[in-house]
């Protein structure tokens, strides 16, 4: 059966539910079951999208938001990876650092927001810092865990075959930890968007969150919902990219091979 289903139909299946909801929503607003103050019609949102992108406002906000998100992500993921490699490969650093990191991890990073605003003001640094902090822990934990769960027997084999410390890391430990690291990265991407939304909603003078808060003051619910949808879209895109990386790097792993590929 599967072989006769065209590939594009197969791809379409995950989209059926969202599209159905959208149609229902439009119907609900056009027939007046839902007040537009509560929820704007999808077509109004589309109009807002066209207007804002024509004026260039949307792109400016989008660019600012993405720069924040990925800037913070890069810093946080890099720090998390480095820390994870370090504690994962050395018992001494593990003893030195891991307990502290585990303790700090239990503080929700968003709870630090007031303190961070005191430290950095409401400028870019505060947002970058919050995002980096939020991203760092999932990446760290999964890197550490990934390295620790690499098959001991493979490591012994690598040693017995004369691999240097660096060779062992590159050929055995890193690829062995990669599935777990990528799980951390995907999780961290979720944290990244969440932190961005909170940070931009609380204090910003640009970005998608600012656009939404600004529109709220004028009861432009269509712009508010547009901002929410943009966040959702960005989140989806980042997840698709992460999945692509998984397929690319983990092609050897039967769990990550696409069915039929």
């Amino acid at each position: 059966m599967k072989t006769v289903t065209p590939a594009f139909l197969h791809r379409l299946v995950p989209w059926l539910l969202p599209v159905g909801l959208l149609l229902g929503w439009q119907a609900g607003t056009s027939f007046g079951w839902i007040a537009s103050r509560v929820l704007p019609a999808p077509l109004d949102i589309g109009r807002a999208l066209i207007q804002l992108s024509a004026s260039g406002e949307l792109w400016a906000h989008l660019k600012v938001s993405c720069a924040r998100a990925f800037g913070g992500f890069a810093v946080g993921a890099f720090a998390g990876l480095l820390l994870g490699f370090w504690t994962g490969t050395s018992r001494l650093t593990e003893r030195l650092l891991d307990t502290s990191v585990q303790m700090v991890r239990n503080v929700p990073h968003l709870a630090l927001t007031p303190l961070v605003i005191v430290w950095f003001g409401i400028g870019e640094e505060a947002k970058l810092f919050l995002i980096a902090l939020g991203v760092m822990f999932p990446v760290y934990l999964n890197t550490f865990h990934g390295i620790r769960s690499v098959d001991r027997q493979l490591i012994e084999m690598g040693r017995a075959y004369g691999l240097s410390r660096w060779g062992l890391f590159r050929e055995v430990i890193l690829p062995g930890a990669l599935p777990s690291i990528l799980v951390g990265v995907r999780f961290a991407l979720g944290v990244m968007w969440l932190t961005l939304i909170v940070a931009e909603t609380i204090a910003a003078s640009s970005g998608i969150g600012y656009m939404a808060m600004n529109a709220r003051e004028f009861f432009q619910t269509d712009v508010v919902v547009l901002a929410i949808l943009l966040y959702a879209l960005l989140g989806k895109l980042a997840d698709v990219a992460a999945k692509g990386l998984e397929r690319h790097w983990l092609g050897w792993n039967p769990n990550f091979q696409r069915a039929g590929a």
Partner: protein
Amino acid sequence: MQIAELEYDLVSRAAGAGHGVAVSARGLEKAYGAQQVLRALDLDIAPGEFVAIVGRSGCGKSTLLRHVAGLERADAGTIRVDDAERRGLGADTRVMFQEARLLPWKTVLENVGLGLPGDWRPLARAALADVGLAERADDWPAVLSGGQKQRVALARALVHSPRLLLLDEPLGALDALTRIEMQGLIERLWRQQGFTALLVTHDVAEAVTLADRVILIENGAIALDLRIPLPRPRERGDGAFAELEGEVLHRVLAREARES
């Protein structure tokens, strides 16, 4: 490709005679916690000799092998390989484990080439061809059968032209037919390349098929050292074969009977 393969063949054949190393262990002691595993163990292996170690589960066969490999340090005693004391891993030694231990993220060919310097592909291909898996070079290890994985592991060990090959129950997980095939393959490559071989096995018939000498370990020391003077390749059904196999089995079981 062709030329490289030919060269590889020539190299390995030329190295064949006098290629293996002599191994001698003196007074080897090893304890894990309170448990004494090796007790004043002495062992001598001549260059190019094929020695099989048998013994009951947990008697210290793997431990002895890991010491000869340099993967572990003895509490006391020395291991000499060609008159040089073994400290740490030797570049002239390769180990084949009970599990194939292939890196799942590398192709079959890349696995065979692991740790080879320079232009390793032709060498790795030739070694794969030696174990009859040339056409699987670009597959992931995950899609191979157990026996094929062990053949890849054998190729990976032999591509380094080791002078000492240590095998820790490499065929233990294979079915009987594949096992006999693999034994033939190991014997053929051993005769071609002339390395010294130390094989741990729980299969007495396998030990008698392959080894010049069968050694039984009991109580952390050598309890039996039996020469197998049969001509190769050996026939399992053979009278002399059965007699030797019986002798080893009897010796292993006699102790079990005494103990229970």
